[in-house]
């Protein structure tokens, strides 16, 4: 798509706000609609837009397959790791009350970390699905 100048310029302008919006959805999920699942997919959508306009090879240079694999596994590991830390602190698996001194703060931290894990896995998996299907 090297001849579509309008498309290239517009997507260059659009991609940073999309990435920023994904992060907003990720970290504002505690207060408004949104969360890890949606944020991951929005993040992946920005990447897919880049791949569609600038070509898959350029996109693969931005995020390599190895990074995708590692991040998608890391998200699940982060989620499970939060649960394991709870167990080590003498609580049930994925009961976040003991993560901080104050139970409510512990819950908040736990939810934040867990949502981050969800976002990482979902984003990386959606990107890699697109990469594998279109390569």
């Amino acid at each position, binding site marked *: 798509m090297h001849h579509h100048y309008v498309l290239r310029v517009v997507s260059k302008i659009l991609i940073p706000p999309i990435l920023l919006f994904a992060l907003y959805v990720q970290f504002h999920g505690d207060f408004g*609609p949104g969360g890890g699942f949606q944020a991951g997919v929005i993040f992946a959508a920005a990447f897919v837009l880049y791949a569609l306009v600038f070509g898959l090879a350029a996109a693969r240079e931005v995020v390599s397959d190895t990074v995708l694999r590692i991040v998608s596994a890391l998200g*699940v590991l982060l989620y499970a790791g939060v649960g394991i830390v709870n167990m080590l602190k003498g609580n049930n698996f994925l009961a976040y009350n003991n993560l901080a001194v104050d139970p409510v703060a512990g819950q908040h931290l736990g939810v934040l970390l867990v949502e981050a894990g969800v976002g990482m896995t979902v984003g990386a*998996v959606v990107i890699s*699905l*697109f990469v594998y*299907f279109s390569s």
Partner: protein
Amino acid sequence: MLGVTALAILRAPGLFTVVMLSSIYSLLSAVVFVTLDAVDVAFTEAVVGAGASTILMLAALALTNQRRAKPTPISPTGLIAAFLMGGGLIYATVDMPVLGDPSAPATLHVAPRYLNDSYDEVGLPNVVTSVLASYRGYDTFGEVTVIFTAGIGVLALLGRGRRDRKSRRKASSEST
């Protein structure tokens, strides 16, 4: 409008049209979710249903051809079975509680606890997030694992192994 779109999907000639129509269908159901005050679900439906799955379907279309297979003639037994099943489902909806009924079982079980105590227990203004990530943390963990497993499955089926790619790169550099 949802019904019209569904009928259009059934009648559409090309698979490209079907993909686009199903994207429209997802967007319309997102609107329905918004009118039901389920903003989180609407958000997910719009992003995943109308956005990501459409892109994946288009990528899959690029791998196959765009024509629909010749439709098989409708068998009378299948038609009767489908009508019986659909009629049974519609008959079952008669027993469902009215939308927004305060005495419905779904609003009496754990929902009051979530709505009344979640702010004191979890401290998040968005009840959906506190249910999703805290009260139902196990289920969400399962969902993430499912997504991860799906990614691994696609990787195993379509992604070429590292060794294969290296050998291909070597072959292409030798040929140039």
